[in-house]
């Protein structure tokens, strides 16, 4: 190609319009230049490597769920058959039927749903409140309170196992209730028994002491620190007070973060065994976490068959699947917020 060919040809079409023609090199050469170079190769290799890695790890993450789901549709004979891997030969819904009808699923689901929703909403709001107070207000003791929040996260609740039970079995605030009941105002000598009610978890949620609330408060604090102060200042100038500013200006802005925290609080309460083990020791309050069991009709029918161990394990797995099923639906709807919450939270230094 010589220089003349490279020159664009300019043709005047009308008074204020021109047309420019370029000589393009042939398609083959253009493609060659585009795809046959070191840079492109590197990019392709990197993409493939990344994709393989991500798909591999996604597989690792999802594999246990896939096996559980496929096993939940198998019948007993499939567990003995060595040719059966992931796809059941004798498709059956027996396990589901047994688990859903015999184990009081609906009742446990209602209780757990109520408990988790209440805990999730309260914890989200309270942690936002505390995080906002720590992030945006300078007062004496701000740092001390923050350190205390971290401290509640550091001391494992496992350490407080028995103390927690005693606290809520004989609930009393520094003997005040006892004094009041001695004076005849209340009826609670030796404290109130809150075991087997939702109160212990509600009280702990209301005071930001429940499971991993330290983490939520920390996340909220970092998030609110990233919001510009001008927002509130303009609200104050317009005559709004701090609480109103918080509710009508700050909270709507932080919906992705709130949803993230709500998702954590809700799901972790849903699958929690530690607190429900402490606070609910009777069978009166049915929760999903103590719902796992083998249905009697299945046990009677298949106990003697050779694949029973595996079958039983599969029944337990199915219970687990049934428990987490609502969570999966919730997650599918809210995961978009989770990703957004991450993107906008902008955790930075200091």
């Amino acid at each position, binding site marked *: 190609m010589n220089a003349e060919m490279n020159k664009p040809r300019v043709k005047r079409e009308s008074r204020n319009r021109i047309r420019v023609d370029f000589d393009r090199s042939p398609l083959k050469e253009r493609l060659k230049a585009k795809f046959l170079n070191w840079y492109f190769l590197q990019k392709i290799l990197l993409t493939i490597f990344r994709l393989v890695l*991500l798909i591999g*790890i*996604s597989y690792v*993450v*999802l594999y*246990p769920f896939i*096996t*559980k789901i496929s096993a939940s549709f198998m019948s007993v004979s499939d567990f003995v058959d060595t040719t059966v*891997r992931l796809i059941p030969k004798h498709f059956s819904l027996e396990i589901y039927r047994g688990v859903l009808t015999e184990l009081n699923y609906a009742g446990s689901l209602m209780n757990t749903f109520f408990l988790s929703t209440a805990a999730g909403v309260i914890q989200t709001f309270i942690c936002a*409140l*505390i995080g906002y*107070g720590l992030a945006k*207000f*300078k*007062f004496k003791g701000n740092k001390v*309170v923050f350190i*205390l929040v971290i401290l509640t996260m550091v*001391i*494992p609740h*496992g*350490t407080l196992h*028995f*103390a*927690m039970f*005693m*606290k809520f079995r004989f609930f009393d605030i*520094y003997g005040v209730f006892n004094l009041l009941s001695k004076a005849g105002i209340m009826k609670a000598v030796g404290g109130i028994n809150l075991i087997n009610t939702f109160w212990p978890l509600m*009280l702990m949620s*209301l005071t930001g*002491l429940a499971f991993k609330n330290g*983490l939520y*408060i*920390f996340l909220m604090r970092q998030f609110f620190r990233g919001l510009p102060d001008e927002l509130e200042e303009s609200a104050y100038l317009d005559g709004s007070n*701090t*609480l109103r500013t*918080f509710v009508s200006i700050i909270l709507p802005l932080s919906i992705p973060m709130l949803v993230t925290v709500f*998702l*954590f609080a809700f*799901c*972790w309460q*849903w*699958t*929690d*065994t530690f607190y429900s083990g402490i606070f609910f020791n009777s069978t009166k309050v049915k929760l999903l976490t103590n719902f*796992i069991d083998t249905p009697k009709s299945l046990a009677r029918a298949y106990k003697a068959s050779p694949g029973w161990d595996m079958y039983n*394990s599969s029944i*337990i*797995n199915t219970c*687990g699947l049934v428990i*987490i099923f609502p*969570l999966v639906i919730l*997650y599918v709807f809210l995961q*978009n917020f*989770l*990703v957004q919450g991450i*993107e906008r939270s902008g*955790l*930075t*230094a*200091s």
Partner: protein
Amino acid sequence: MTQEVKLQNSASKPKKKRIASLDKRKARAGWFFVLPFVLGFVCIYVPMVWNSLTMSFQEITIIQGGGYSTEWVGWANYYDAFFKDTEFVQTLLTGLANMAFEIPAILVFSLFMAVLLNQKMMGRAAFRAIFFVPVIISTGIMETVQANDLVNKYLEETQNTGIDDGSGQQVTEGIVSLFEVERLFEMMQFGRGLAVYVVTMVNNIFNLVNRSGVQMLIFLSALQGISPAIYEACKIDGATTWETFWKITFPMISPMILVNAIYTVIDSFTTNSNIVMMYINDAYSKSGEEISSAMAWTYFFIIFLVVGIIAGICSAFVFYQRRD
């Protein structure tokens, strides 16, 4: 003249007062916001911690017909935990050693994954959604279910024997075998220790993914917080991706590495799958709550020391961006 002076006085005095009261009002509002926590901390948390701490110095006898009596026994419970219980010290050491191995792996893995998931590519949202599935779902009850899962084990075993060429080995093999990695590492002149470490970690990948969810989240949001202008400037100056990572990304997210290190320590020693925690829970039902709380507090203080040391070491290297 006099009137003017008076006016000035009267104008300046209340103004000064108002500023002071605004600060005070803001401080009051701050206390109002943190009030729930402070109340709960003072009324519920402190008594609980105190109760648990004193319990480790007491002996409890349950009186029949309800109630219990306590007797101060000093350090006896701690003595029992350390010298009479034969396995506690051993378990504690193993637990700490495990932690020392796992924490760097979790940190490196979550950082690596966060960097990967932060890049623009096809299906990023889907991958992110999948990666956070374990954090949301595989906790609490599912952890227990998964630990007792026979089906999964069975399928894995049969799969491996299927691939096996019939050499007679019945041992379940992991994703990678030590032998291959060792050969690879031999060429790169690393020690055998590192090879064993990498192999263990890769074979534990499910566990690793499971436990690095929150850390990944924190790293991702920290990565999002880095201004793209810095990367652009780097690119213009001709830095490679590798250099950009070590000179920009790494220092910028180093505060979050500290946070994550501490979070991982706390998280890994409080989960119920931790061997020391399991041992303590066993002790709770076997030898009573006094000894178990003595053990728990010992463990807690050790962890507190570990956290302190990590925080001390890390904060020497942490880079804080100065905001003007």
